[in-house]
């Protein structure tokens, strides 16, 4: 049989792509510089990869080693974060120490002003290393034109470091003579936007040509306007020529290996790996098949009631609970009438609540008596019902396997706030005590001459659900491998609310990291509440309260949080230090329609400073999130210390994106500047907005394509 089957498959299988998707020349054949930006070798170009692409570049030549991540935020805007070292380097005004590598972070922004046309080039404007000590600080405007399939030419005008070779009087001086002079950079504590430098001082031309000889080989030649002046002064590099030559080898899409001969004196090597969260590696995913919808015949559909002597509500609850458990859905409560059913459940398996709703609806069509026509599904989180999706059983039967059925269901489902508890019959939970052991790795980066260090060990966590919305939980952690030691604590006039954080990891190793009692509630329509008491995080314990107003069908929410906490002893026992503080924030959240999410928190921080935090995330509907935040408080930059103010980048990676199996797990990390005390917030588990938003209208709509999955 298999022979026949294979013969049939091979003889008849024919799938042909009739035409490829169109993309403009400016989006094709994008390669990356040694700075990690789209471009030539050292010089940027105006080409841009597809929206959403993330490029990780590792490069080195002469005294430089650079690691850079570039994210194409929108079709026009890209951002680059770079962490690099320069051997034996010191900033201007400082004395270099032989054997001491200078480590620094830098940040670029680039915006494509014009798209490439039949005759016109694409044009981009960019800021390089504009948010720090400015080792690589420069600005540019650049134009790139692609000729045919293989040739691309770039010419640009640079300022700052990008005018340190072949510079001439700034043509912008015709507009304002003051632009002809670039002031001496006074970066203070670093980390601030050095706007007084932008497009000032001498300018210089740069440019180059790329030739894609084959699909895998692109040759590059450029005239670099980076003279490496400071590095030359220190004798770290000896540029003999502004000309650079190189080749980029692309063994497979998304991998770029570059070798170059730079400035007539240096051999450079670099590699870039790209991927795009917009492109899912496993289309659709390998979710197990769902329960088929059972379609009632006309007679059954006409029934107005059902006989509870034949089929009791208790039996139905048991059947529903068992069937939903097989789908990763924990049934909490059921309300049944002759014509309606309401269920409350928690999704523990699926990335999107829409898919959980679809699975639950299928099960209900399979189990519930035919007279029940209206299903109301109330997804829960942290033991509270978040929303209510009401749908007709007839629609479920009609649209399961019909093209367009997904959108038909979306149009017909009525989403509202969850109902009250009245009428609900609760299901005895199978399990109330949970525990888990997992290894942990705590990476510490940007730490002076030990830029990456890590602790490895085991984390033990446990929780007991007194009620679904009242949970006692705790965790302890023990490290077994540590390659860092307690370093110097930077001096500051601020209370050391975060500066001494490493002491909790080292002196408190094996201690109680968290031990808390959490209560989540629904005090009113569209209102959600949280009260958490105990040892909330390693550094602080006390009480944290929160109230969120978040209507189900709006893109916005507002909330308030008030905490009274005291600083814990470093040994992570039960004791506290003398420092206590009343801290809290008012928050506004907005889910923009274009894939961006914004949050503003205004209030008092742990060190008693007042200010605001602004957070912007690019959210992909498949669970990826990349974003950044900054916090400005009444702590002045000198008092704050290195970095001037708190800021960081954050990323969330959904596990199911890579493995294909359904999972709610995700990996999140925040890359911050040096941990300082200004603008520090309490770390408390279960903040309400992230708890409830998955089951509200915007997030449900984002994942609705998986309703019938």
């Amino acid at each position, binding site marked *: *049989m298999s022979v026949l089957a294979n013969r049939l498959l091979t003889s008849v299988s024919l799938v042909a792509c009739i035409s490829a998707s169109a993309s403009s020349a400016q989006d094709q054949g994008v390669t990356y510089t040694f700075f990690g930006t789209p471009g030539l070798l050292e010089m940027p170009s105006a080409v841009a990869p597809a929206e959403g692409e993330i490029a990780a570049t590792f490069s080195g030549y002469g005294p430089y080693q650079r*690691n850079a991540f570039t994210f194409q935020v929108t079709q026009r805007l890209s951002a680059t974060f770079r962490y690099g070292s320069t051997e034996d380097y010191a900033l201007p005004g400082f004395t270099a120490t032989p054997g001491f590598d200078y480590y620094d972070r830098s940040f670029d922004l680039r915006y494509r002003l014009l798209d490439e046309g039949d005759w016109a080039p694409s044009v981009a404007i960019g800021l390089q290393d504009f948010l720090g000590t400015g080792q690589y600080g420069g600005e540019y405007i650049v134009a790139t034109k692609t000729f045919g399939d293989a040739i691309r030419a770039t010419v640009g005008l640079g300022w700052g470091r990008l005018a340190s070779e072949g510079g001439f009087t700034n043509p912008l001086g015709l507009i304002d003579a003051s632009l002809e002079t670039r002031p001496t950079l006074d970066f203070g504590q670093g980390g601030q936007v050095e706007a007084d430098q932008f497009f000032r001082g001498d300018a210089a031309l740069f440019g180059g040509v790329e030739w894609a000889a084959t699909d895998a080989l692109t040759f590059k030649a450029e005239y670099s306007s980076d003279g490496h002046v400071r590095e030359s002064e220190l004798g770290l590099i000896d540029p003999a020529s502004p000309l650079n030559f190189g080749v980029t080898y692309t063994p497979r899409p998304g991998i770029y290996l570059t070798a170059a001969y730079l400035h007539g004196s240096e051999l450079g090597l670099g590699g870039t790996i790209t991927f795009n969260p917009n492109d899912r590696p496993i289309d659709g995913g390998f979710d197990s098949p769902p329960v088929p919808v059972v379609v009632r015949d006309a007679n059954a559909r006409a029934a107005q009631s059902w006989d509870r002597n034949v089929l009791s509500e208790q039996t139905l609850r048991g059947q529903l609970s068992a069937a939903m458990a097989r789908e990763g859905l924990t049934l909490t409560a059921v309300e049944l009438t002759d014509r309606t059913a309401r269920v409350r459940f928690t999704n523990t398996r699926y990335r999107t609540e829409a898919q959980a709703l679809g699975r639950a609806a299928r099960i209900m069509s399979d189990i519930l008596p035919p007279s029940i026509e209206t299903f109301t599904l109330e997804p829960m989180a942290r033991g509270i019902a978040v929303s209510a999706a009401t749908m007709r059983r007839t629609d479920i039967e009609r649209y399961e396997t019909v093209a367009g059925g997904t959108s038909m269901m979306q149009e017909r489902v009525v989403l509202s706030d969850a109902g009250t508890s009245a009428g609900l019959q609760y299901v005895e939970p199978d399990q109330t005590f949970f525990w888990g052991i997992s290894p942990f790795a705590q990476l510490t980066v940007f730490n002076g001459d030990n830029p990456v260090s*890590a602790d490895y060990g085991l984390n033990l966590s446990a929780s007991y659900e007194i009620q679904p919305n009242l949970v006692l939980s705790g965790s302890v952690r023990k490290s077994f491998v540590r390659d860092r030691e307690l370093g110097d604590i930077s001096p500051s006039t601020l209370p050391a609310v975060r500066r001494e954080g490493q002491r909790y990891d080292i002196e408190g190793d094996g201690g109680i990291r968290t031990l808390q009692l959490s209560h989540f509630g629904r005090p009113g329509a569209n209102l959600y509440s949280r009260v958490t008491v105990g040892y909330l995080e390693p550094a602080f314990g006390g009480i944290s309260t929160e109230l969120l107003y978040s209507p189900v069908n709006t893109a916005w929410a507002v909330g308030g949080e008030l905490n009274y906490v005291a600083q814990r002893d470093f040994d992570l026992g039960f004791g506290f230090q003398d420092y206590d503080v009343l801290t809290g924030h008012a928050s506004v959240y907005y889910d923009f329609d274009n894939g961006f999410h914004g949050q503003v928190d205004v209030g008092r921080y742990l060190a008693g400073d007042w200010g605001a935090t602004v957070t912007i995330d690019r959210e992909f509907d498949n669970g990826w999130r990349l974003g950044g935040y900054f916090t400005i408080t009444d702590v002045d930059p000198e008092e704050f210390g290195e970095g001037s103010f708190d800021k960081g980048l954050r990323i969330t990676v959904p596990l199911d994106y890579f493995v294909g199996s359904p999972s709610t797990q995700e990996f999140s990390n925040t890359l911050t500047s040096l941990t300082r005390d200004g603008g520090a917030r309490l770390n408390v588990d279960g903040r309400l907005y992230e708890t409830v938003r998955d089951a509200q209208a915007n997030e449900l709509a984002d994942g609705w394509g998986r309703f019938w999955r």
Partner: protein
Amino acid sequence: MISARHALLVAIVALAGCNNSGQTNPLLNVAAGFVPALGAIPGVAEAPAASPGFSPDQIAANPDNYILIQGQVLGDPVLARRIAQNGLQETWLAQNGFSAVYRDGIMVATRGLGEDLIAATPSGIRAALRAGGGTGQRVHDYIGDQNEIIQIAFECTITGGEIESVNLGLREESARKYAEICRSQRLQFENAYWIDASGEILTSLQFVSQASVYVRRSEL
């Protein structure tokens, strides 16, 4: 600067972990596919010894409830049992875990194949097959990278071919082969049906998606 040692350890850390929640880390299941020994780790799902509903007694008692089915991306044909019937629509669950839904012999959905056919509305296909040839339309729904529904409309032409001998495993039958060629703006595929004198589709090879390609079903 980030050493290989750190990268390796972080990867291992991401892989491991156990708990009593009944939820298995999907990474462990993936790893178990490559490293058989991992199958012994608590929480890593092992392949069931025998799928429920597929015992010889059950098959013998109700052979009409079983077909042979082959997801091209999943390898050899396996048995599938009917798990739902709503009028002319039948849902079949294969022993290796995927399901396929047929409406009057035309596949309208699959699950468990990766890039699945989420739903389909075939118009005039079955009628053209009954008439010995003709034209029809199809509309297919797929899930895109961002969980959006991608809908593709096809124009299809059905033509009848020769009568062939078809081996159905337990019997051999004569059936006429029909080819259904469907084209959209970007995609073309070809389905095949072998239909006996009574008009029953004895076996068919039907398109799922570009990644999952075809599913073949065959009456026992």
